[in-house]
């Protein structure tokens, strides 16, 4: 059983480290994990759930705003981008945040094609992050079920 726990813990360390190295996550995610304790054991999962809900809602808003026949209200698109940038920054979703910065610039330049491209990329990135984090949480669950402790992995 100890060998299994050790193996799972190594797998978890490597996987989590790769999320930072590949730019999916930044230091703010580490800060988020520090706020999780025995009194709030699901804090990170709850915050991430709110973030992914934000992604669905705000990406939907952006898509509708860009889909207007006639003149696109780029300030309306920009307002949703600003909110998503805030959320992604709060959870340490580095790639999503970076795309929001670019997206905001396209909004300010009234660049329709740039906005559409960014929207597509953000949709891909948040879904990729969601899958990666789900895999990470699954590993945590396996470690706990095997009787081990989840190791702390910082950036």
């Amino acid at each position, binding site marked *: 059983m100890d060998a299994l726990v050790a193996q799972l813990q190594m797998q978890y360390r490597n996987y989590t480290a790769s999320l930072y190295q590949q730019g999916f996550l930044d230091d*703010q995610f580490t*800060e*988020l994990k*520090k*706020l999780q304790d025995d009194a*709030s054991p699901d*804090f990170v999962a*709850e*915050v991430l759930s*709110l*973030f992914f809900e*934000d992604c669905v809602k705000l990406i939907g808003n952006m898509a509708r705003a860009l889909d207007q026949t006639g003149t696109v209200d780029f300030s309306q698109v920009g307002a949703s981008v*600003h*909110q998503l*940038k*805030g*959320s992604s*920054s*709060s*959870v340490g979703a580095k790639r999503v945040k970076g795309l929001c910065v670019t997206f*905001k610039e396209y909004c300010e330049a009234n660049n329709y094609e740039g906005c559409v491209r960014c929207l597509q990329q953000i949709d891909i990135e948040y879904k990729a992050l969601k899958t990666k984090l789900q895999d990470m949480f699954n590993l945590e669950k396996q470690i706990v079920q095997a009787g081990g402790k989840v190791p702390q992995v910082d950036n």
Partner: protein
Amino acid sequence: MATTSTGAIEKTKSVEVKKKLNVLIVDDDTLTRKLHESIIKAIGGISQTAKNGEEAVNIHQNGNASFDLILMDKEMPEMDGLSATKKLREMKVTSMIIGVTSLADNEVERKAFMEAGLNHCLAKPLNKDKILPLINSLMDA
């Protein structure tokens, strides 16, 4: 707590605030409110939330509200952080008010927010290491 020769605040080694703070968190974003509630709890404080500046002002209307600290977001519907801060200071609210801004805000916007009556301004995202030294230094001042 020490200040360097340039006036920058050095990080304190303490992990909690020096006194149990009662904090009002004012932000229109649910995720941010949850994050800030958790940060305040982690540094040994207790908190209440408001979804915008108007709610924050309404909480103070009956004169019974007593917060050590108000964390005030800048961009909010109904009443933004700048307007709410001005209003609270007009109502003689003496709580410490820390403005929470986006990094995209320029110097002019930050200055205007400070002049509305803030004690200090911090850029999002907040975390324990960012806020704790500031709160302790403001309490020492």
